[in-house]
């Protein structure tokens, strides 16, 4: 029997949910220029609230109206008023940190408030399990009819709203030019809040509809709904709702066809289906020219704006601050070496973790701090470093440090390859490309026995250098502290080099840099490659510290978490990365002792909220403190000189 029609019909409900998500993303993006990566997190929260209430015997209509319509709308408006409007004119890194803060914190806040148990997914419009009729012998169940019906009604309403209503007309005006719309008495901020409100309802709807299809409310799947939505929206160039809708439908259908035809015996058969949207996203980013400047919507009237005035306090940072940085390195080394024998064994282990993470975090300082480019896959490179080092050692009996050196070089080239792929992309485009790479690695690469060996994980032995054995945490801590110091010096040298200055130029104005012959793509190639190599190396060190490591230790969420932590602490300085790494491992250890099972939730909420507070005044915490100390020191010095003269 030809199974193709069956797969097509099975894919339609997925396509419908993706379409709702994609339409919601396009709507908010077009009116604000912000790509709401927390869209899926919103969907997760609403579906939890809806099903918990419905499960507690609220009438369906009441639960639907309260959570999916009213609460979703208000949540969207609230996010816009409190966060998105403040981010509109910020740099890509600031926009990303704000939105990622929301993405990281929202699901954890929901779990903290509602508990970690999932509600029962009860059918609402139609009985989910009942088969109503057959198409090509495919049993069409209640959940399928429910999803398609709701999607069709919503899309028709949306088309009516945008095409024939007054609100639609004002939205079109704001999409065309917010400034021109304002000159005609339309408040672009109010219109964008409305768009975020509607987008919030679409998020709620997609979450509520996706849960019965997946038979669970899963934070991972729902959070990643946004990737499928972006992939579909990318196919429509983030402008046409009709193309976006059709692309989403096609995405859902092809995903099921692919899952249907890949033999179950194939090792990665279960990973291919969820990975398909990530592949589509990569292809859309690489081949759709309209996405090259994604995230930088330009108002045609922006030319009348005076040039943006930079706050002087941000300049107080010089490309390098040798004294402070070297001081930090000496402190870390001194601390590790001196107290290695004094502090308890467990804390030595924590400091070992801190040193390894410090190396990964320095890769973010090097890349984002120098070029302004954002990578959402630095933890993934860490994973490559750890897993491949283990594989080389276990399969070929290479000494672990030799394996690590080989893998570091490999990561250098993989990083370069990603930079080459994204050579035409800037800002958010590069961030999305790296996010898709991280998700692909999580789903397709890491589960393989050649990498992380699924959830079983891999073993990395501690090295032996001649007669020195690094089996104890004490000796390994000293080794890692020295390595961290060397990596810090390397990062300092690169940032204070001729190419480091060029990177600062490119991050300041790629157009200006190009006008004097400095190539954005060449610069990004060098920094991406180096940052990937450092992250891979740090991941290997982390693996050797832990000794047993699995794919969960380097999943995509860690990339987001690491990025947010480094940026919030100060991405332009070495101190920022080091403080971020050590605060993170120390806080995790303390929480592990006192918070037990809730450690993940508490960390996510804390980091998310920290990011949200930070975007209100985006200066790294460590950098701000250094600046304050400096100015205090200067004023005291001046006062003393004055007294002396008098």
């Amino acid at each position: 029997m030809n199974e193709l029609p069956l797969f097509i019909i099975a894919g339609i409900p997925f396509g419908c949910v993706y379409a709702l998500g994609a339409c919601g993303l396009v709507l908010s993006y077009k009116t604000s220029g912000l790509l709401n990566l927390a869209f899926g997190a919103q969907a997760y929260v609403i579906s939890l609230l809806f099903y918990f209430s419905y499960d507690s015997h609220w009438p369906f209509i009441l639960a639907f109206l309260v959570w999916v319509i009213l609460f979703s709308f208000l949540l969207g408006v609230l996010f816009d008023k409190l966060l998105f409007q403040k981010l509109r004119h910020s740099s890509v890194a600031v926009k990303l940190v704000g939105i990622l803060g929301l993405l990281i914190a929202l699901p954890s806040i929901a779990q903290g408030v509602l508990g970690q148990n999932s509600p029962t997914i009860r059918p609402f419009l139609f009985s989910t399990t009942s088969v109503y009729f057959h198409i090509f012998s495919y049993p069409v169940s209640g959940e399928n009819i429910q999803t398609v019906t709701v999607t069709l009604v919503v899309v028709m309403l949306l088309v009516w709203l945008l095409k024939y209503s007054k609100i639609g007309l004002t939205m079109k005006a704001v999409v065309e030019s917010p400034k021109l719309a304002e000159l005609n008495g339309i408040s672009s901020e109010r219109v964008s809040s409305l768009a975020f409100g509607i987008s919030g309802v679409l998020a709620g709807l997609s979450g509520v509809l996706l849960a019965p299809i997946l038979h669970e409310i899963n934070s991972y799947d729902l959070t990643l709904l946004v990737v499928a939505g972006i992939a579909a929206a990318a196919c429509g160039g983030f402008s046409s709702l009709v193309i976006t809708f059709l692309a989403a439908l096609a995405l859902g259908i092809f995903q099921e066809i692919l899952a249907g035809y890949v033999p179950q015996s194939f090792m990665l058969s279960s990973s291919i289906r969820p990975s398909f949207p990530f592949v589509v996203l990569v292809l859309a980013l690489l081949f759709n020219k309209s996405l090259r400047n994604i995230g930088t919507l330009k108002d045609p009237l922006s030319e009348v704006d005076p040039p943006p005035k930079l706050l002087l306090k941000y300049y107080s940072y010089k490309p390098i601050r040798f004294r402070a940085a070297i001081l930090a390195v000496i402190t870390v080394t001194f601390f590790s070496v001196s107290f290695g024998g004094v502090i308890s064994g467990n804390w030595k282990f924590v400091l070992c973790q801190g040193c390894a993470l410090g190396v990964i975090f320095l890769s973010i300082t090097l890349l984002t701090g120098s070029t302004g480019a954002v990578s959402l896959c630095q933890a993934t490179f860490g994973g490559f470093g750890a897993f491949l080092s283990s594989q080389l050692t276990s399969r070929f009996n290479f000494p672990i440090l030799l394996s690590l050196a080989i893998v570091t070089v490999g990561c250098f080239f993989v990083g370069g390859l990603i930079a080459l792929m994204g050579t035409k992309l800037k800002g958010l485009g590069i961030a999305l490309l790296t996010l898709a790479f991280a998700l692909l690695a999580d789903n397709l690469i890491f589960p393989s026995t050649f990498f992380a060996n699924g959830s079983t994980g891999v073993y990395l032995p501690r090295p032996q250098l001649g007669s020195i054995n690094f089996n104890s945490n004490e000796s390994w801590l000293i080794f890692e502290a020295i390595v961290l110091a060397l990596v810090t010096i390397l990062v300092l040298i690169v940032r204070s080099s001729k190419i480091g200055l060029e990177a600062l130029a490119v991050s300041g104005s790629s157009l200006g840099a190009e006008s004097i012959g400095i190539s954005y793509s060449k610069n990004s190639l060098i920094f991406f490659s180096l940052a990937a190599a450092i992250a891979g190396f740090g991941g290997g060190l982390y693996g050797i510290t832990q000794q047993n490591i699995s794919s969960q230790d380097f999943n995509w969420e860690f990339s987001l978490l690491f990025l947010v932590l480094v940026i919030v602490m100060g991405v332009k300085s070495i101190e920022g990365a080091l403080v971020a790494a050590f605060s993170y491992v120390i806080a995790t250890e303390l929480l592990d002792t006192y918070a037990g099972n809730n450690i993940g939730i508490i960390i996510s909420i804390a980091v998310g909220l920290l990011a949200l507070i930070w975007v209100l005044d985006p200066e790294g915490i460590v950098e701000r403190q250094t600046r304050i100390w400096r100015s205090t020191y200067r004023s005291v010095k001046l006062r003393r000189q004055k007294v002396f003269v008098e």
Partner: protein
Amino acid sequence: MKDLLKINNVSFKYGKMQVLEGVTLGVESNSIHGFVGANGAGKSTLLNIISGYLKADSGSVEFLGKDITDLKPIQRVTNGIARTFQKVELFDTLSVYDHVLLAVRQKEKIKKKTGSPLDIFRSFTASTKEAEVVEEILGAVGLEGVKNSPVASISLGLGRMVELARAVALEPKLILLDEPSSGLNTEETEIFVEIVKSLSDKLNLTIVIVEHDLTVINLLTDTLTVLESGKVLATGITDSVLNSDIVRTTYLGR
């Protein structure tokens, strides 16, 4: 005199809108050539086509007798074309001095074809020779007083000077200036005109300038092209173009 820059039958469309149609003209060496025209006449588009930021739909651009139509912006820089922007494009976190230093280094790279990945380990501090050149350029454009200031703290007028200094530091054969007086007050404009004039004389530069301010055009340019709806309305010696009947009636509305 031989044309340094030749634009042959260049046409360009933004979507369905024809912005340039069959534009043909030449710019002589060591001259200052101006482009004027109403908003949307295609002046900045033409400048972007010359500098490689836009690619013409048809026609060609010749520079020093070589067809550069298919060259990327960076390749055009290495061929000797530098430019400034209507909305100043400065490097936010760098000082005025660093802007010029970067351009001086680029010039050396272009000349000697040096520059290697090993530059990643070489300090960005200026060598004595580089420092001398930077100081000289900063002096020529009157930026010595603010050389250590971050560009974020200087006025728009000085920002335009930094862009000019950065372009001059490349020692190009042709400099393209995109509406350099936009946003400047009368005093700043006068200073800018003086500096451009002196640089052009001293360095034998060829300059192409897109400008709205006819006073600046009158003071600076030797030759002028008036664009009207993407077509050349008139081109030639500045005085004669501005006094021609067609320009007076169509562009100046007299």
